[in-house]
């Protein structure tokens, strides 16, 4: 039970002479929200891409639920329960909000190699999708095309799609970026509601959101983890203050 959900060890990634991920190691424990913070260019996005399968690391291992997934393609990781949101939202723009979530729900329920029965008659999938839209505050927007949603609504929709996968780990890549104060508050509320049951990796620049949500924080600077600890420990860590928090204050 105390085994970590995700365990990253000695992860390295170079682009030419530039080492973007430099021996990164951290883990995510069951039920915890683990925030990854760091200044711009610290390699957060590159790290996320390696965890989610878009980039293959040069060295090191990523273990998910006890299984080595370092070289597994993205869709296989997703099938094992690793769901994510994107820094720049990625939706199915020509689909309605409901269809976006239904497409995610469908992946969890039976085969998608069914060729003849119309999906419109798949009441179970639609009902599950509608329930998720209610939960994420998009209930009234079900029939609107995803491309017509506001920025904050698109964030909510991405989250609804991730939750539809009934994930075992949720990776959130800057979920608050570009959202207004009110929307941020709503997202924080939503994530807090999930905390304790669903482990999460939270990459975020909004420090108030990070400190409000995170159980533990890892600080990434120039591709290295310089500190990992509880919010209180991170706040008190002189190295972090110098490298990051101090910078922001100045």
């Amino acid at each position, binding site marked *: 039970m105390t085994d970590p959900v995700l365990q990253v060890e000695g992860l390295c990634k170079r682009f030419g002479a530039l080492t973007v991920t430099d021996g990164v190691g951290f883990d995510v424990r069951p039920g915890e929200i683990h925030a990854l913070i760091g200044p711009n260019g610290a390699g957060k996005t590159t790290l996320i891409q390696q965890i*989610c*399968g*878009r980039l293959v690391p040069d060295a090191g291992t990523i273990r998910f639920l006890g299984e080595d997934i370092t070289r597994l*393609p*993205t*869709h*296989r990781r*997703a*099938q094992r329960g690793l*769901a*994510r949101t*994107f820094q720049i939202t*990625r*939706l*199915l*723009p*020509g*689909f*309605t909000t409901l*269809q976006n979530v*239904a*497409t*995610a729900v*469908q*992946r969890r329920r039976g*085969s*998608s*190699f*069914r*060729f*003849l*029965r*119309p*999906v*419109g008659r*798949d009441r179970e999938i639609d009902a599950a999708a509608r329930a998720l839209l209610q939960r994420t505050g998009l209930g009234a927007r079900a*029939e*609107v*095309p995803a*491309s*017509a949603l506001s920025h904050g609504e698109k964030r909510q929709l991405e989250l609804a*799609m991730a939750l539809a*996968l009934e994930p075992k780990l949720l990776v959130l890549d800057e979920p608050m970026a570009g959202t207004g104060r009110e929307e941020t508050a709503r997202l924080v509320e939503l994530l807090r509601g999930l905390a304790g049951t669903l482990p999460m990796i939270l990459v975020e620049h909004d420090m108030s959101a990070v400190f409000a949500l995170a159980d533990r924080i890892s600080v990434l600077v120039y591709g290295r983890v310089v500190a990992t600890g509880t919010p209180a420990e991170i706040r008190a860590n002189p190295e972090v203050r110098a490298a990051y928090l101090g910078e922001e204050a100045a």
Partner: protein
Amino acid sequence: MASDAMSTVDIGASPSALRSVWPALLIFAVLALVPVVAPLLGGGTYPLTVAGRIMIFAIAAVSLDLILGYGGLVSFGHAAFIGLGAYALGILMDAGLEEGLLLLPAAMLAAAVFALLTGAVSLKTRGVHYIMITLAFGQMAYFTMTSLSAYGGDDGLTLWSRPLVAGFDWLNDRSAFYYIVLLLLVTAWALCRAVTRSRFGRVLRGCREDEERMRALGYDPFAYRLAATVIAGAIAGLAGALLAIQAEFVSPAYMSWQRSGELIVMVVLGGIGSLHGAIVGAAAFLLAEELLSGVTEHWRLIFGPLLILVVLFLRGGLGGLLGKVRHD
């Protein structure tokens, strides 16, 4: 921008099945009336031959629309499936097989196998590379057939008879052949329509919308696209076999890259991602060819600008004039 998106999804309309089917039903009704009306107008067997040819190419265009319109894959080698279907039929008839109920499935199988093998390679690429590699496979098939001297090589292969249907000699009857082709067109359309609206179709369309998003949901776009390519290849192979029966001749020209280009033009003309549009597009293209080539042999000089006008001013193509498509 918001209103733009609204119009493509066509919200607000009730998802009545009839609403989205009637344009196709109208087209089928018109096609069904051709053999009845044509004798009254004179012109002998000519209208029936042209309409039959339209329906055969419509079958191929509908199958291309499945991967081009719904899969977002610009395949420039679709004519190869047609040619392989035609050759499979021609070669088996040459070997003495006469039963259409065996020949047509065999033609579909041949094209499907080719689609599976080439698709497994070409679908590893994207964008321009995909276009070029499908073109290359198409040309490979074309040159293989032109050099196959046992089956006519450049000159093609003459069929000395038409296949039987369950032992009956129906295909030599013009009207019977016409209605069999119509029945197959309706079947191909209905099948593709069901596929695009199914769970599978939703995933296929999703991969067109955003491949990376679909991967993050746990879908492997490759598998779905390959399956769609095989389905489309089989249907195009059927069209090829029918083309061979109608002409009583198999020509390597069926699989030239120009043919693939013309099929894309048919789909674009009729409206990408609208199956009845593909039928309208095939009809418009072949009728334009018939009518304009009577005026001048440089008929494409007139047709080209018309195509540009359709693309520029008719969002949804000619098929869009009949009705919008709605999914789910």
